[in-house]
């Protein structure tokens, strides 16, 4: 019964996507071909919108049917048989939907459906614009693919026979016990799928040839939102890994983690360089490429982790969808590259960069750094495959590699975060920099002195603290100036919200530097009653305990910290899966976390010694705090900033957040005038101006 309903929703989504896509694209092609536009465009657009609005309905329907099946333990539905269980608590039963491949595709389809609905609602006033039409065609093409996966190779609603005494195994044990499991994947998916919207508009702009700044302004906020979700999802994932996996860390440069980091890196690069295009009209090819690359990388990431090509701790290996995802990746990537190549002539940008000491030059430098980091991460992830195909050698590329290349890039990025926000557009004088950067530099000295005073040593961490102070001072300076000028509005808008995001990044960077560099990791063999000391904390092993439920046997050690509260690191046997998992116990703190792992328990005698691993990690909570602050900053950034209607703007939506005082406004008007001047000049075929094109 439920499997029939579910399949019906999947087929509805598939059919609606195909129908809408075909009707829309045929009408739009016809419209583009005929010189006066096609009379049939309007009704066709209406019909496409009607089909498009069925897609979110289908996604919601499929999601709800699967949740009902999970809660009813309807084991005749194939996916419930795979991950359902009679004994897991409701929240993990709810989250079981995204604990394996097929269900996570439902979540993907649902999210895409919701974004489609949002686009339909948001752009209702431009409903017959061919650019919007093409964007919708692209979005429906993507949803065709994902509903197609659900209908053919990865159908979670298959009807299966079920033995009378069948008891579900439940999801992977690691996904059964921590509340973050309920939030991390949906956040990540909202981020991943959200990049489909700017991608769709980019493709639409390429197809229609309307490559003015318009589409960028329309999708910039969507990109910010998707980026915010992705950021928050990644940080939540790191936190989950720290709380559940029991290795005392939060980021292992695992292929799945790398797959989420790749679009984040290119997305971050885009969010910065898009400002150069808005202000100066430059970097159009580059920005389009970044938007397309970001979406392509989300698909590549999905392929890498869902196809079994690369082994990973938390990949759902399933060979069946691999070829589909790879084909889709091929279509999307080759299509994007082809379109950009085809429209290259229309993308010639006017304008030039006047000085290396300018906002736009600093954004270029930002892009070099983020591009290089994305390249490092991609190379490190796929290189073992390449090496094996090339000469059969088996390589592992892990933390030391990513650390040694990532650290210098991160350090330079922090430096840039200090300097770039105070740089004006076009050109800065050294006196200006010297005035604006002085107090941030004092902050750098203060933070470094404090760090050294409390015992921080070593080049990389202390360098990180120094530059964090510098960048933090610079961001605080911007926020203080903005709030002094605009009151509470000094916290909202892209620029000000962006500074809050920067502060989040800085706090996170200090957390990473301290927790990696000053980690203490000790292993003790302890008998009951014994006490050990680590970093001036005492740990007393009081004895073993056990509890048992129908799904797991838990054996835990009672360890009191500093003679106070008792913590219970455990080893848990998940009887349905035949898996033994070490569950850590953490005492969090602002300055340091105490992290206990039960490495080994005595097999026969409860009085025999245990092996206890004690990890002390300073400032690790700063990483989560930084992530939360980045999320808050993103929210502030999407709130419209101070926009005065009396200022005429050349663009449909001007850069309101940046125009605080009247000199600023007049200069941005002048800057736009210069942009348009340069645009006119580049049309003159002189040698001089020809050399300025192409950026």
């Amino acid at each position: 019964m439920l499997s029939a309903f579910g399949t019906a929703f999947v087929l509805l989504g598939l059919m609606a996507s195909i129908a809408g896509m075909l009707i829309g694209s045929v009408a739009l092609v016809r419209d583009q071909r005929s010189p006066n536009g096609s009379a049939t465009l309007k009704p066709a657009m209406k019909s496409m919108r009607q089909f498009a609005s069925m897609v979110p309905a289908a996604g919601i329907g499929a999601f709800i049917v699967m949740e009902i099946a999970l809660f009813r333990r309807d084991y005749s539905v194939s996916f419930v048989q795979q991950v359902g269980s009679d004994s897991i608590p409701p929240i993990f039963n709810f989250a079981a939907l995204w604990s394996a491949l097929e269900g996570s595709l439902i979540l993907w389809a649902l999210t895409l459906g919701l974004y489609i609905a949002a686009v339909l609602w948001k752009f209702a006033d431009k409903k017959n614009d061919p650019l919007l039409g093409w964007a919708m065609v692209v979005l429906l093409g993507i949803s065709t693919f994902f509903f197609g996966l659900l209908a053919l190779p990865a159908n979670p609603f298959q009807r299966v026979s079920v033995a009378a005494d069948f008891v579900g195994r439940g999801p992977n044990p690691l996904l059964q016990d921590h509340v973050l499991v309920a939030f991390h994947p949906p956040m990540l998916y909202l981020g991943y799928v959200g990049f489909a919207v700017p991608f769709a508009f980019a493709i639409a702009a390429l197809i229609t040839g309307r490559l003015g700044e318009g589409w960028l302004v329309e999708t910039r906020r969507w990109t910010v939102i998707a980026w915010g979700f992705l950021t928050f999802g990644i940080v939540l994932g790191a936190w989950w890994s720290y709380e559940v996996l029991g290795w005392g860390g939060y980021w292992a440069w695992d292929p799945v983690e790398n797959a989420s980091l790749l679009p984040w890196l290119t997305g971050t690069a885009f969010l910065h360089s898009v400002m150069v295009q808005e202000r100066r009209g430059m970097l159009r090819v580059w920005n389009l490429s970044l938007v397309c690359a970001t979406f392509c990388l989300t698909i590549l990431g999905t392929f890498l982790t869902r196809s079994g090509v690369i082994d990973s701790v938390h990949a759902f290996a399933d060979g069946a969808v691999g070829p589909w995802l790879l084909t889709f990746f091929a279509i999307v990537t080759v299509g994007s590259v082809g379109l950009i190549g085809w429209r290259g002539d229309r993308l010639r940008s006017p304008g030039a960069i006047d000085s290396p000491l300018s906002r736009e030059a600093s954004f270029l430098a930002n892009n070099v750094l983020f591009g290089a980091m994305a390249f490092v991460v991609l190379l490190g992830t796929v290189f073992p495959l390449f090496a094996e195909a090339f000469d059969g050698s088996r390589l592992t590329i892990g933390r030391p590699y990513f650390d040694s290349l990532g650290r210098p890039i991160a350090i330079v990025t922090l430096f840039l975060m200090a300097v770039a926000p105070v740089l004006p557009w076009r050109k800065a004088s050294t006196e200006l920099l010297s005035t604006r950067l002085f107090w941030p530099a004092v902050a750098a000295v203060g933070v470094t002195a404090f760090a050294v005073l409390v015992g921080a040593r070593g080049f990389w961490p202390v360098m990180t603290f120094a530059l964090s102070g510098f960048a933090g001072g610079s961001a605080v300076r911007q926020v203080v100036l903005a709030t002094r000028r605009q009151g509470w509005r000094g916290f909202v808008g892209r620029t000000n919200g962006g500074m809050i995001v920067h502060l989040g990044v800085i706090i996170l960077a200090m957390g990473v530097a301290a927790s990696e560099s000053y980690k203490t990791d000790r292993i003790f063999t302890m008998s009951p009653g014994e006490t050990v000391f680590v970093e001036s904390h005492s740990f007393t092993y009081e004895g073993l305990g056990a509890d048992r439920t129908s799904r797991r046997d838990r054996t835990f050690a009672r360890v009191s910290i500093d003679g106070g509260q008792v913590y219970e690191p455990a080893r848990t046997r998940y009887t349905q899966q035949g898996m033994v998992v070490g569950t850590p116990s953490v005492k969090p703190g602002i300055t340091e976390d105490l992290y206990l792992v039960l490495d080994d328990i005595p097999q026969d005698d409860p009085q025999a010694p245990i092996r206890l691993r004690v990890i002390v990690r300073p400032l690790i909570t700063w990483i989560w705090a930084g992530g939360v602050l980045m999320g808050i900053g993103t929210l502030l950034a999407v709130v419209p900033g101070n926009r005065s209607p009396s200022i005429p703007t050349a663009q449909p939506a001007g850069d309101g957040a940046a125009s605080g005082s009247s000199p600023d406004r007049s200069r941005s008007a002048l800057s736009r005038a210069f942009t348009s001047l340069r645009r006119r000049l580049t049309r003159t075929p002189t040698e001089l101006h020809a050399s300025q094109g192409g950026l």
Partner: protein
Amino acid sequence: MEAARTEPTGSSSIRTIAIVIGVVVVGLIALLAFGGGDQITERNGTLGKRVPLVQGMPLEGLAGTSVNSDGEPIAYSIDAENGSWVLVNFFATWCAGCIVEHPELVALEGWGQSNNLSLVAVVFDDADTAAIQKFFRDRGGNWPVLRSPGSAIDFQISLIPESFLVAPSGLVVEHYVGGLSAADVQATIDEFST
């Protein structure tokens, strides 16, 4: 970065770059599609290699234990099985999948007697010897059961029940996770034997 290159002729350079990137992408796709061969299957590090040493004193009170002339039990060693097929099975009494799998192993044991296949079980994270003895009394089975603490590491065990099929040459040829079927194992052995 390539796309930001400044050339005198903007459009054609963009095309050239697009073509270059296109070629790289197609190469990447080809690599992902054809590179590496058998990556879709899981890769347990022991597959295709010589079987790690499995030895130990079989648990007392269970059948399948060899005794010497004095009636004392002899330590099991997989090396002594050279020349015959061996199925190494990792299990525990607390593991639900192991209970489901057990009848298949019993069936395999019967088939193996006339087909040059022997079984050996290794206890995984299960201290309760009495429970193991009861497990075999209740469910049948007549093969040596060992405590071999290092073996779980050597065989890279993560999700029991797991089993490894060792050919008469001593090479590990197959790995079964989460419950095997006797028919699968028989088919594999038949395939190798013909």
